[in-house]
């Protein structure tokens, strides 16, 4: 099955969608394939590019798709050092963004792709960014916001802060087997239900995504996962369980100190069979009742 189909479902149902990644695996490929898939189904896609140039973003797309992509260049001069800026970091607020998104008169609400949130987080307060994203989402100027976040560049609180805002978070990690990677998707529905998915995927040269195996089934409760992960009896060197015959044998054994019928009769009929000490005093034995220790030379 192809992920593009499932991608579509995700994109239609959720207003925002973030991809996180680390140094060891770049999420940009998946982001590009998302852009391609969105363009293929005739969506209006705006890309705020800070980390990758316009040519590179358009480069991997085929002709008609590349033409329809609307690129806002925050790559060449994001801080206004060269005084040739087309989009600067300061413009990242809901008013300016809404203005830019509405410039192109399109009947459909567009998809906004941010490449990347990490760049923005370096120049803005995380709170301000979260607020802008929230306002954008409420304002209705966009249908979906997709952002790339390099999660290893920020502290966990910032990553959490942005992740809480998202309705779906895809965390990518490499595997030992070459082009394959693991995508962990956490989706939050409006009712507050959280579902997690783990999939093994790879991206082909033409930016199509192939899912190879679903690692864990959708809708699995997290508590279940945690308890199965923390099973201490998983890899023991000894046996903790009993087979039926072993249990039978175990039950047959009578415990010491339990007063059974046998013990009772043994105690009552003691005599002949129990051991006795026979003592015949020797002639030399000078046993003095008064002083039993007198042979000790004390």
């Amino acid at each position: 099955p192809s992920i593009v189909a499932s991608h579509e479902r995700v994109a239609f149902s959720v207003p925002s969608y973030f991809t996180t990644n680390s140094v060891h695996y770049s999420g940009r490929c998946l982001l590009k394939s998302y852009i391609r898939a969105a363009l293929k189904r005739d969506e209006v896609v705006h890309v705020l590019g800070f980390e990758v140039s316009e040519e590179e973003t358009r480069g991997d797309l085929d002709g008609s798709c590349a033409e329809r992509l609307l690129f806002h260049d925050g790559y060449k001069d994001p801080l206004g050092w060269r005084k040739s800026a087309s989009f600067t970091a300061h413009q990242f607020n809901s008013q300016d963004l809404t203005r830019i998104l509405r410039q192109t008169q399109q009947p459909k609400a567009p998809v906004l792709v941010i490449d990347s949130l990490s760049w923005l987080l370096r120049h803005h307060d995380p709170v301000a960014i979260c607020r802008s994203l929230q306002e954008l989402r409420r304002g209705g100027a966009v249908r979906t916001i997709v952002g790339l976040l390099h999660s290893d560049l920020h502290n966990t609180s910032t990553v959490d802060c942005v992740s809480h805002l998202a309705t779906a978070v895809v965390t990518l990690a490499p595997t030992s087997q070459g082009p394959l990677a693991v995508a962990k998707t956490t989706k939050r529905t409006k009712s507050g239900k959280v579902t997690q998915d783990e999939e093994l995927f790879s991206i082909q040269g033409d930016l199509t995504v192939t899912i190879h195996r679903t690692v864990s089934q959708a809708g699995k409760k997290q508590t279940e996962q945690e308890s199965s992960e923390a099973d201490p009896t998983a890899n023991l060197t000894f046996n903790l369980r009993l087979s039926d015959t072993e249990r039978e044998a175990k039950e047959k054994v009578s415990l010491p100190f339990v007063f059974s019928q046998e013990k009772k009769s043994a105690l009552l009929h003691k005599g002949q069979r129990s051991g006795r000490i026979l003592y015949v005093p020797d002639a030399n034995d000078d046993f003095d009742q008064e002083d039993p220790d007198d042979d000790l030379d004390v």
Partner: protein
Amino acid sequence: MYAELNSILNASPDNCKQGEFTLISDRKADASFLVHHFLSFYLRAGCKVCFLGLAQSFSHYSAVAQRLGVSLTQAKEKGQLVFYEGLKDCLGVLLREGSTHESPTLDFLRPHCSDLKGLYDFVSSSVARVGDAAGTGPWAPPVLLVDDLSVLLSLGVSAGAVLDFTHYCKATICTELQGNMVTLIRCEEEEEEQGDEQGSDVLLKGLIHQCSLALQVQGLLTGYCKHIHGEVEVWWRGVANGMQMQKKVLQYKVHDKGAVFFARGTSSVVL
């Protein structure tokens, strides 16, 4: 210039790649031999080279380049090399603070300024002057070499400001002018105190995200060895054609006039 490294990186002075951002990082080892390699490589390739020498003086680089068969003095006279003596100039700014005649290049050392715009302006103006020396013909494409970025951190620049600087250099040199960029960064050993380490850690990760080729030099885990000086991890990070990154780990030994690279455990003294 090390021929062996060229074949590993699949490059030669006659046919050098364009738009490449190479990051060299080292940990418990010295990766400056790679800086010398790239300096002589790009000078031989006929590129216009802008070198920000923040860690060593010109005479040091010149002496090493001489051994590798390249004359920096000549390249400078021809206009091919622009060498920025950051080591001397920084001291100059710090000692003569408040004097009227100031170049904006080292603005970041002055209290009112925290970004590296001045340094970027210097870089962009020096790479833009392609072929203005009369009769020598144009040098293309431009190359920026920085040795090393960690010095900026020690001078009080924040990691974010350094990343902005490299971002601008990449946008101008690699993307716009189709040139190349090579920077060195030194990482601290792992058991350092938190506050300081964070800066260089963030800088390293940020740069790895920016670069297209990372060469990570590391000392041997088992300690010093006379015949194997360390390991280089070559990490192609280009994500073109849907290909994810490739990695290759090699061990190396630096000689007087070159370096040898070999697969792990295949050093001639081991076998």
